[in-house]
């Protein structure tokens, strides 16, 4: 309520005089325009539209007017208040945009700050390398076979045509479990997995066997008592060396790129006949042996890289493992995973794989 209406005159009520209303409106509009932030505008809103603001007080006087005067006064006040409310709204919108922009500027951070609160983990390249190889074969419709690393001598040697007096048995320096005549060894190759597969499944068989193997080699930059091999075995009707070549060529291309193929050289492995060494066309110099006029380091200038051994499965092996050697033929191949990764990634020292230095492992990420 306004104060006592001392100079009561229905037409001449001071707050309702047009010039008073205009003045109050203009003062409000000026204050709105002058507000520089949302807080100031909030105060302007209280001062000029609140219960004690001139326009609110004036509005309250309308009721005291004689009925014939109310309409005009009401319109005048209403228009003034409307103009103020509109200006407030507009100013509010402008200031809100300004505020948000300013906040966004003020909240700017240095995004180059480190974020490595928990250091990154990584899988081992020997693991991801084995998976990469397995996946190439799985994509061809092969399956992945496994077996134990501590293996029966019979499966590691005899079943694979490495009889007790086979010269090749001395080529592979074997860890024997104690006592030696218990016939249990640390497998010297992943080939016993092939034997196990043939013993437990019927052809057609297409399996790839990555795994850990052991030889009594002294530990140095290129030898290790433990390393990793991947072997493949295909047993089917009508399998030939040509299928072996096709498979290894595809493997080489998938692993090393378009145009990288293999070549065979005659060799000797008891479990295959005919046997071959597989060479990989050097994926760095592409067979030239040199790169930018210098000898290629990857293939030592040979143009080819020794990759592994392979051949047609010896029918004696098929027989020992219960496969009908009259009906089926097969091929097998094997290579070192460690060695393959060494030349694929330029690892100079084999021991890098086994030291466990996280700087080595994390460099490969978690997928090859």
């Amino acid at each position: 309520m306004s104060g006592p209406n001392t100079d009561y005159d229905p037409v001449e009520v001071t707050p309702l005089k047009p010039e008073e209303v205009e003045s109050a409106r203009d003062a409000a509009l000026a204050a709105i325009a002058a507000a520089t932030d949302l807080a100031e505008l909030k105060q302007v809103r209280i001062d000029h539209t609140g219960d004690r603001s001139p326009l609110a007080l004036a509005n309250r006087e309308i009721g005291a007017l004689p009925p014939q005067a109310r309409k005009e006064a009401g319109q005048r006040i209403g228009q003034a208040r409307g103009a103020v409310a509109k200006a407030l709204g507009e100013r509010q919108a402008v200031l809100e945009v300004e505020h948000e922009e300013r906040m966004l500027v003020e909240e700017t951070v240095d995004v180059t700050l480190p974020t490595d609160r928990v250091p990154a983990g990584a899988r081992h390249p020997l693991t991801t390398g084995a998976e990469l190889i397995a996946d190439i074969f799985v994509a061809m419709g092969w399956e992945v076979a496994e077996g134990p690393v501590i293996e029966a001598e019979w499966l590691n040697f005899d079943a694979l045509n490495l009889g007790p007096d086979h010269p090749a048995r001395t080529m592979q320096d074997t860890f024997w479990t104690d006592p030696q005549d218990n016939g249990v060894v640390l497998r010297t190759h992943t080939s016993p997995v092939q034997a196990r597969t043939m013993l437990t499944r019927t052809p057609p068989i297409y399996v790839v066997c990555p795994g850990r193997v052991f030889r009594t080699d002294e530990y140095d930059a290129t030898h290790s008592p433990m390393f990793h091999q991947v072997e493949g075995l295909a047993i089917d009707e009508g399998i030939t060396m040509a299928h072996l070549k096709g498979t290894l060529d595809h493997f080489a291309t998938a692993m090393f790129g378009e145009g990288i193929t293999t070549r065979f050289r005659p060799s000797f492995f008891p479990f295959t006949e005919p046997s071959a060494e597989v060479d990989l066309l050097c994926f760095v110099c592409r067979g030239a042996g040199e790169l930018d006029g210098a000898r290629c380091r990857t293939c030592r200038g040979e143009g080819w890289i020794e990759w592994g051994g392979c051949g047609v499965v010896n029918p004696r092996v098929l027989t020992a493992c219960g496969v009908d050697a009259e009906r089926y033929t097969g091929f097998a191949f094997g290579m070192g995973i460690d060695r393959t990764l060494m030349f694929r990634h330029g690892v100079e020292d084999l021991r890098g794989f086994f030291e466990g230095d996280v700087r080595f492992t994390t460099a490969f990420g978690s997928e090859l």
Partner: protein
Amino acid sequence: MKTPVSWIREYVDLPTDLTTEALAAELTDLGLKLEAIEKPGDQITGPLVVGRVLTMDPEPQKNGKTINWCTVDVGDANGTGEPQGIVCGAHNFAPGDLVVVVLPGGVLPGGFAISARKTYGHVSAGMICSARELGLGEDHDGIIVLPQDAGKPGESAFGVLGLDEEVIEFEINPDRAYALSLRGVAREAALAYDAWYTDPTQRDVPPADDQGYPVVVEDPAGCPVFVARTVSGFDPAAPTPDWMVQRIQLAGMRPISLAVDVTNYVMLETGRPIHGYDADKLQGTVRVRRAREGERLTTLDGTDRALSTEDLVVTDDSGIIGLGGVMGGEATEMSATTTRVLVEAAHWDAVAMFRTGKRHKISSEAGKRNERGVDPTICEAAADRVVELLTTYGGGMAEPGVTVVGTPPEPTTITIEADLPARVTGMEIDPATTIRHLRAVGCEVAEDGTRLTATVPPWRPDLVDPFDLVEEVARVVGYGNVPSVLPTPGAGRGLTRAQRLRRRVGRTLAGAGCVEVVSFPFVGEAAFDQLGLPADDPLRHTVRLANPLSNEEPAYTTTLLPGLLKAAARNVGRGATGVALFETGTVAFPSDRGAAPIYGVDRRPTVEELAALLDALPAQPLHLAVVLAGERERAGWWGEGREAGWADAIAVVRRLAADLGVAVTVEADARMPWHPGRCARVLVDGTEIGRAGELHPKVCASFGLPKRSAAVELDLDALLARAVDVVPAPEFSTYPVAKEDVALVVDDSVRAADVEAALREGAGELLESLRLFDVYTGEQVGEGRTSLAFALRFRAPDRTLTEEETAAAREAAVARAAELTGAQQRA
């Protein structure tokens, strides 16, 4: 096998412009693997000539040495024809000798450039060379004195010294023992170039008679052929001719004396190891038999050996005089006084040779050939060749008798279908090609319809099976002609679920910030001691190795922790402030069920036989181990860092279990190597699968790890076995959630998991989730008491819960907790 190219050319008519590299490549394609090509003269350039010493004036020096001031006729090689003045420190020559001179401008091995230089008061214009200076060996200290007929002064010395020789070194596979001879390598060269070949063993030999040295072979299976010849009047001082010395050296053997050199030369030439006895030291009949129990022999390497009853021995009336085919005895060895030589060329059973060599750890050039199989038909020719060379260069004469005991075994025949090579190799090989190539490698081939019967040549004992013939045909056709054809396996099923889950394990742990390591599984007592395992801990019961690389680590490990903790310590030692590692690998527990049987290979083992085999193997579960040492979260602009502790270890286990879809629980345990108050036993369906927690302080100290390092070891096979194959989809409500917090005060001895379980049980079906969010101990709850604050979330599947329903469920939960654990609701 090192083969001088000129020696190969002696037996095979190779194109004159053929390079050694090209020859080596062709032979590699046939299966003789190139190891290296050696060119001894490669490192010498410039004038290296024959010189004749004209004068030689010894001049004593102040330093006590005497040098020789020499003038040497080097013909026109110095451009002037005048004698060359050279200072020489050696004394093993005299005026008139032919020597090797390198003139100024020449470069010797090691980049040693020769120039005229002032020394000992003379200008020395060149150098008189020793073998060592030319890279020809280490043996001679003095300079090389050439034979008088070696050449004229001024001629190049390269040819005289064999420096223009090229040597191909092959790695000979076990099946190609015939290529351990020039005879065999030359035969392959002839095959490669379809060239004329002269077999060095094709020679007229005198017929056997009964006038030769008496020999009795009591074990014809072990020694099917024994040929003996005798040379008497031999001059033990006669030198080995230079050409022979040179070839023996180029082949990688050491020249010793004429008699020994001749036997080695003939072995290199023919592949047949020869043994020479000092015939004057032999007593009575030479016999071949197996050794008897308790017999011993001192072999010519000076080793006294206890013999096995499987060893083949050569005896005379004095007893055992040699380990047949492997190594001779000391007593009858040829020496510097030997004038009568008994030449033995015998064929020995390869398996016996292999076993004897292995048993006595003898690796010799003779043994290497005998154990792989030598042509049994060339004993007479080889012996005759030895006699020829001994009499030619050592004087003396062949005694008339020729002893030949036994006959070579019948040749092997193999019958194949003519199209077998084509069927196995995938190459287009017609029967005519097969026949031609089999004949080229020495087989006699008889045709019978579609079948071919090959009679294997005697130098190829490796050819036994039909597929062996396939390889012979394939390598002659050329492996380069094998087409590249992808096989067409049926549709595959991809990885098994177990295989996919194992990959998941690695990804989860890498995602949790752990780095995978691969360690050796070898372990010793020291590692178990470091882990603080009690003496009777089952982990100490290991699969032991008969031949460990190190006696410190003689067993296959039962736990991955030693390798992993060492790797962690290595990282810390290299400056890492925090390290999180994991490893998956098999461990082994002995089966203690005796030996794994060895079966034959002519048939598949029966199911029972196979089961017996597998049963003897150790249990080899796949384990997972994790170590978290030092800084787990780094300090940074965000605030303080955090050291790893027991909770991180258990968190890794829970995270992994969640990723695998397996529910694990933990309960308190106390077992080394963990901290007795901070060790959790991990269970799945009530079965223990491993442990996680903080390591015992002593273990951290013994491995050099930061205090409070934590570790996990799980039986991954057991964990993965419980992963559900097909996970059923969950059902959940979308009605509003009702949240209730309760704080319960319990005795310190009460486990949070037990309170949680009681709350769950009491809350009933409306409880959606429950989480312990605060643990408080202190004055407000009293001595020996702990306050546990839980956030409970309730939700019904079909309606919005009323306040009353929620309150009732909460009260029921608290009541059950009070009942089971003595929990009191905190005021």
